């Protein structure tokens, strides 16, 4: 029997599992192939929903689904925490002492936040990348009558590259709706010399930020936070005082990957075309966990899963990689609470920003619901 183990119950894991169930239907039914999906959480969370949660515009129950409901019945979902991958013995070790042997392994375990990498951040910072943090931020925003809010991109790379701009635009309108915008100063910091790494997006976003009277600090690589004085300090020597610091903390791949020697400088070295893990046979990676120079976004995991599943299936049939990922990415961008735009690009074609419209905003909200069809591999 050919055993395929997928680690991760997020979009990359479930969509890959469903593509594989389609490509290998005959082999799964005959018992020649088995697919196991290992995840430490029984539910998948639609992470873009956290942004809305921070503004009280979404509910936690609405943005999660049981992983078992999202994948083909031919996929064996196991709720287990992976502790290590033994690449020599070709088995995945799980908490409690068990092991799962594999012929092929798919690493789709995403990324984790590491606020401790920035001194003072865990004590004084807020973010919106998990349910608890997003709700805590919402409570603080509701309570802030006046003062300073700093949105700071600290970790590079990070999940959802457009989220820092979105949260800033949404903040501006949210505060205006509450009659507090004139009492709350907004600042936005970015590590390089423009407001976003994508030049065309920065060209659009900079005047939009200026129009909203947002203070812009570029070449700002946050180094530490003075939690007592509530001051953010940069590697370049700039200091910014704040009442609320909405930070994009440092990100890293999962701990078990470091314990297994499968990550370098925080990420899994991955071939940008085939999605094979470099230096390994029959081990693949996709989504946020790779070191690829692409966005850490759900759409990337979505498109990569189609490539990866074809290559895994080809190996089952005894051939080499047959599909190549072209860098395709699509990101919606909320430009406030009632308008949005989007960008679409790949390795060869840079993105162009469309003017924001209400229609795209409603399309984004519709997709927030329709996402579960994507997770099931139907959309």
């Amino acid at each position, binding site marked *: 029997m050919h055993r395929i183990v997928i680690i991760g119950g997020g979009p990359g894991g479930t969509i890959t599992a469903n593509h594989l169930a389609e490509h290998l239907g005959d082999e799964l039914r005959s018992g020649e192939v088995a697919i196991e999906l290992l995840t430490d959480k029984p539910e998948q969370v639609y992470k873009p929903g956290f942004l809305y949660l921070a503004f009280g515009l979404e509910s936690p129950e609405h943005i999660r689904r049981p992983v078992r409901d999202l994948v083909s019945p031919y996929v064996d979902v196991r709720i287990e925490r992976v502790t290590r991958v033994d690449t020599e013995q070709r088995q995945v070790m799980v908490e409690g002492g068990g092991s799962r042997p594999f012929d092929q392994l798919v690493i789709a375990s995403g990324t984790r936040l590491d606020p401790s990498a920035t001194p003072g951040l865990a004590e004084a910072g807020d973010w919106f990348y998990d349910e608890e943090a997003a709700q805590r931020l919402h409570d603080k925003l509701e309570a802030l009558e006046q003062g300073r809010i700093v949105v700071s991109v600290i970790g*590079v*790379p990070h999940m959802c*590259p457009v989220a820092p701009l979105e949260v800033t635009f949404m903040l501006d309108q949210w505060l205006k709706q509450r009659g507090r915008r004139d009492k709350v100063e907004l600042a936005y910091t970015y590590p390089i010399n423009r407001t976003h790494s*994508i030049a065309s997006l920065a060209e659009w976003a900079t005047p939009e930020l200026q129009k909203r009277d947002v203070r812009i600090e570029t070449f700002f*690589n946050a180094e530490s936070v003075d939690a007592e004085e509530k001051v953010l300090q940069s590697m370049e020597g700039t200091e910014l005082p704040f009442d609320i610091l909405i930070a994009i903390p440092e990100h890293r791949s999962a701990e078990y990957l470091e314990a297994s020697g499968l990550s370098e400088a925080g990420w899994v070295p991955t071939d940008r075309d085939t999605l094979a893990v470099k230096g390994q046979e029959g081990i693949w990676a996709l989504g946020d966990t790779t070191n690829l*120079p692409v966005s850490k976004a759900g759409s990337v995991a979505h498109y990569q899963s189609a490539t990866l599943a074809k290559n895994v299936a080809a190996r089952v049939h005894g051939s080499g990689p047959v599909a190549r990922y072209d*860098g395709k990415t699509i990101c919606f961008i909320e430009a406030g609470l009632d308008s949005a735009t989007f960008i679409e*690009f790949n390795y060869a074609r840079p993105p162009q920003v469309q003017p924001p419209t209400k229609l795209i905003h409603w399309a984004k909200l519709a997709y927030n619901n329709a996402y579960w069809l994507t997770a099931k591999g139907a959309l």
Partner: protein
Amino acid sequence: MADTNVKQEIDARGSACPGPLMELIRGIKASGVGDAVAVLSSDPGSNKDIPDWVEKIGYELVANEDHGDYHRFVVRKSK
């Protein structure tokens, strides 16, 4: 040779997001003082972005090699 201390070489060719300078900053953050990081970029904007950031932060631009369709930048974390 100027870049014998290169600890990490990042191939950011074709990277629109997060982009070569962001990839370089990521590499530099993970490096120790004295280490050098090389980044390959096919983005013409890197010719300005990378030297500007290196000057702003006070590190050392060890090399900017023109390979035709891409540049190879080597930056040392000098402090």
